C-alpha cells in the first residue's frame, strides 16, 4: 500500500512556561486517514503541543505545516481555516447558547444571516457521524457526553480535515466512548486524520494506527500500534517497568459508617437513591460500580456531608448522625477525593500551599485566628514530595498544573490527614484516577490499598470495572438509584457485574 499523503507536519516545536520546558523540539507527522495517539504522563506536554498547533499558544520555536502550507502561528482562526478542528480537554463551549448557536459561532460574517442552511448541515452531520444531539438544546443543560458531541460537530461543521481530540474519553461512560470510536472510524474512512490523546491504553490499542510518546516535553518514542502492546507503551511512557497494584484479601474490621435505608428525591433525569443500605468497614475497600449518573453522586454527597437524606439515616461508629455538613464530616475523619477536581476540589487561583490546607486551615494550621503559614508550607511540600506532584513549587497557582498533578495534590491532602485526627478513618474516593496517567494510577491505587491496610475504610466509586475488581474487597453495583447486594472479592465476573449495571439483575432479584 502506498503511503498516504502527509497532512500535518510539526517541526521541532518548543514551548516554555517560565523555567519549565513543556515542549522541547517536538516533531510529529500525520497522514491522511490516520489516527495517531499522543501518549505521555500527566504534564508531559500533550495539551500544550495541541494548543500550539491550534494557535492558543505561541510556540517559542518550531514550524507547523498543514497540507504542505505553513500555518500562521498563534492564530486559531488560521488553524480553523486550514482545516484543523480541536475538541478541547476542557470543552470550549458557551453554556448560555444552544447547540446550533455554539456551532455557528464565528462561522458567519458578523452582520450576515442564514440559520436555515446551518441547521440542515448540523442535522446532516449528526446523522452521518452518529452524533445525536438536539440542535436547539441549551449547552449548559447537556451531559458531558452530549457536550463532547457538540465539540466534534463544531469541528466537522467547519469541514475540518484534521481532528484533535484531547482526552475525549476521560469523562465519558464506556458506552459513550464506544459510540465515539464508531464516529471516529467513520471519519477516518472519509479521509479525516485524527490526533487522539488518552491515558487509557486499551482505547489507544483499539483505535490508533501509530503512537507517539512524550515524556517531560520530549518525544521518547514512536511506534506502530500493531507492533506493540499495552505493557510496552506503559513502559515507554513512564520510562521503566510498571506493575499495577493488586490488593490481597484481608479480614475487615468494625462497621465505621452505615447508610441505612437512605432515599433522596430524583433530580431531573438523574435518579435519586432508593432505600440504599451500605456498610463501610474498617480495613476494607468497598467498590461501587455502575455507569455514572445512576445515583453515585447523591450517595457521595450524603456521605461527604453535602446533602442530607430525605428518608433513612446515617450512623457513624454506631451512633446515629444528627447534624451533618461537610465540616462535620471532615471533623469526623471522613476525607473526600471529589469527582470534579476543578470545581469541588481546588480553587484555581490559590497556590498549592493554600489548596493543600483548604480543608484544615482552621483546625490544624492556625492558632488564635492567625494562620501558621510556615507549617502550611511544610505540609504542602511534604505532599508535593510524597505524592510526586510535578510543579515549580508550593507557591504555584494550582490552575497551572496539569490535571493529573492536581489530582495527586488532592489525594495527598486527603490521605495525609484531611482531618483533625491526622489520618482519616473513612476515604470517599469518587473516580480518583480519572484523567491520570498509568504511572499515577498505579500510585494512587497503591496509596488507597496502603490506607486500607492501616485500617481505613475506603469507598471507591468508579465506572472502570477493572479498577473496581482489582481493588475492592466487596463490590456493590448501582443502577437507577438502587444498590445491589455486596459481592465478596473474586465471586463475580465482569459480565455478571455488567448485568447488574444494566439493571437486569435487579428485576430478577425482585421477582424471585
Amino acid at each position: 500500500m502506498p503511503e498516504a499523503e502527509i497532512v500535518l507536519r510539526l517541526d521541532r516545536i518548543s514551548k516554555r512556561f517560565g523555567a519549565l520546558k513543556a515542549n522541547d523540539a517536538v516533531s510529529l507527522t500525520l497522514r491522511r486517514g490516520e489516527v495517531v495517539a499522543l501518549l505521555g504522563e500527566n504534564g508531559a506536554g500533550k495539551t500544550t503541543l495541541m494548543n500550539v498547533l491550534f494557535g492558543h499558544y505561541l510556540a517559542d520555536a518550531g514550524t507547523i505545516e498543514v497540507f504542505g502550507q505553513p500555518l500562521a502561528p498563534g492564530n486559531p482562526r488560521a488553524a480553523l481555516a486550514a482545516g484543523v478542528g480541536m475538541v478541547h480537554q476542557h470543552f470550549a463551549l458557551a453554556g448560555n447558547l444552544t447547540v446550533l448557536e455554539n456551532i455557528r459561532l464565528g462561522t458567519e460574517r458578523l452582520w450576515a444571516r442564514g440559520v436555515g442552511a446551518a441547521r440542515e448541515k448540523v442535522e446532516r452531520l449528526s446523522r452521518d457521524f452518529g452524533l445525536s444531539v438536539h440542535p436547539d438544546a441549551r449547552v449548559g443543560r447537556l451531559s458531558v457526553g452530549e457536550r463532547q458531541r457538540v465539540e466534534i460537530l463544531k469541528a466537522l461543521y467547519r469541514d475540518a480535515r484534521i481532528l484533535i481530540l484531547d482526552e475525549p474519553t476521560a469523562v465519558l461512560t464506556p458506552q459513550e466512548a464506544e459510540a465515539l470510536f464508531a464516529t471516529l472510524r467513520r471519519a477516518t474512512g472519509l479521509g479525516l486524520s485524527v490526533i487522539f490523546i488518552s491515558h487509557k491504553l486499551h482505547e489507544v490499542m483499539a483505535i490508533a494506527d501509530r503512537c507517539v510518546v512524550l515524556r517531560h516535553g520530549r518525544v521518547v518514542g514512536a511506534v506502530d500500534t500493531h507492533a506493540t502492546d499495552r505493557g510496552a507503551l506503559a513502559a515507554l511512557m513512564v520510562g521503566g517497568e510498571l506493575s499495577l497494584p493488586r490488593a490481597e484479601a484481608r479480614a475487615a474490621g468494625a462497621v465505621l459508617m452505615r447508610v441505612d435505608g437512605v432515599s433522596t428525591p430524583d433530580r431531573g433525569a438523574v435518579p435519586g437513591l432508593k432505600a440504599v443500605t451500605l456498610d463501610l468497614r474498617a480495613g476494607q475497600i468497598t467498590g461501587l460500580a455502575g455507569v455514572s449518573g445512576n445515583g453515585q453522586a447523591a450517595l457521595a454527597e450524603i456521605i461527604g456531608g453535602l446533602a442530607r437524606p430525605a428518608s433513612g439515616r446515617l450512623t457513624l461508629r454506631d451512633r446515629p448522625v444528627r447534624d451533618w455538613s461537610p465540616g462535620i464530616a471532615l471533623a469526623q475523619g471522613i476525607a473526600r477525593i471529589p469527582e470534579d477536581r476543578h470545581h469541588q476540589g481546588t480553587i484555581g487561583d490559590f497556590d498549592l500551599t493554600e489548596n493543600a490546607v483548604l480543608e484544615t486551615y482552621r483546625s490544624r494550621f492556625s492558632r488564635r485566628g492567625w494562620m501558621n503559614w510556615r507549617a502550611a508550607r511544610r505540609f504542602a511540600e511534604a505532599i508535593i514530595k510524597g505524592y510526586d506532584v510535578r510543579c515549580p513549587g508550593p507557591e504555584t497557582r494550582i490552575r497551572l498544573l496539569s490535571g493529573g498533578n492536581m489530582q495527586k495534590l488532592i489525594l495527598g491532602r486527603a490521605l495525609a490527614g484531611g482531618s483533625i485526627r491526622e489520618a482519616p478513618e473513612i476515604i470517599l474516593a469518587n473516580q480518583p484516577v480519572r484523567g491520570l496517567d498509568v504511572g499515577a494510577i498505579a500510585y494512587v491505587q497503591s496509596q488507597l490499598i496502603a490506607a486500607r491496610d492501616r485500617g481505613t475504610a475506603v469507598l471507591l466509586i468508579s465506572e472502570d470495572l477493572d479498577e473496581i475488581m482489582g481493588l475492592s474487597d466487596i463490590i456493590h453495583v448501582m443502577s437507577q438509584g438502587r444498590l445491589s447486594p455486596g459481592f465478596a472479592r473474586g465471586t463475580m465476573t465482569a459480565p455478571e457485574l455488567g448485568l447488574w449495571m444494566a439493571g437486569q439483575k435487579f428485576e430478577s432479584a425482585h421477582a424471585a
Partner: protein
Amino acid sequence: MSEIVDILISASFWAAVIRIASPLILATMGELICERAGVLNLGIEGIMVIGAFTGWMAVWQGLPLWGGVAVAMGAGMLFGLLQSTLTVPFGLSQHVVGLGVTLLASSTASFAYRLMLPEVTSPPKIEPFRPLDIPLLSALPWAGEALSQTALTWAAFAVAGAVAWTLYRTPLGLALRAVGENPAAVEAQGLSVTGLRMGAVIVGSGLMAVGGAFLTLSAFSSFFFGMVNGRGWICVALVVFGGWKPGKALLGAILFAAFDALQIRLQQTELGAVLPYQLFLALPFILSILALILMSRRAEVPAALMVPYNKGER
C-alpha cells in the same frame, strides 16, 4: 386612593414616565452591551456626565442638536476606549477602573465647564429638542398627549429594539453573548475576544453618553453639576433587574420612571402635606430594590462577567 388612580390614568403622567425613562433606557442598553460581553462598566455615571456636558456645549457653540448628540456619543466612546483598554487587554480590576473613569469623566466635565465659562453664574440655555408632531398619532385623544415626545425619546426605544435584534438575530450578537459567557469558546472559534469586548465597551459607552446628553438636549436644556444624580448607578441595577435581557431591562426602566413620576405627583396631594417629602424621594428606590429582589432571583448572570481573559494562560 382615588387620587392615585386619577394620576395613573392621566395622559400627562404617562408622558412624564416615558420622558423620564428615555435617558435610563439609553444608558441601560449601553451597560447591558458591556456586561453581556463580560465587562462591568462602572464608568457609566461619569460617562453620562460627559455626554450631558459635551452634547450641550457643542450645541451652545452652534452645532445642530443631532450634532450635539454625535459629539456626546464620540466623547463617551473615547472614555469607553480608555475603560476597555485598561480592563480588556491589560485585565485590570473592572471595579477600580470603572470608578476611576467615573471620577475622571465627571471632573473633566467640571474642569472644562469652568474653563469655558469662567464668569457665568447660571449656565446658558440652549434650544432643546421639541416634541415630534406625528401626523395621525398626535391627533388621538389620550395617546396623542402621552406620546408627544422628542425625537431622542423615539431614538431611545429604537436603540432598545436594535440592541435586542443585534443580540438575538445577528452573528455579532451571538459572539457577544458567547464572549461574556466563555471567552475561551469564542477564541476557539477563531474570533478575537479582545476585539469583541473592546468594541462592546466602546459602543456601550457611546450609548451611555447619549443617555446623558438626553438630559441637556431634551429634558433640561441646560447643564448643571449633579444633574446625572445617580442615574448611572440606577442603570447598572436595571441591567440586573432585566436579567441581562434588553426587553426586560426596558420594562424595568419604565417601571422605575413610573415610580419616579408618581412620587413627584404624590407630593402634591394631601399625602404630601402629612408625610416628609424625603419619603417620596426614596419611594422609587425602595420599590426598585423590592422589584430587584423579586425579579433577579433566577436571572442568569453572564458567567464570565468581570473575569479578564488572557490568551495563552490557563
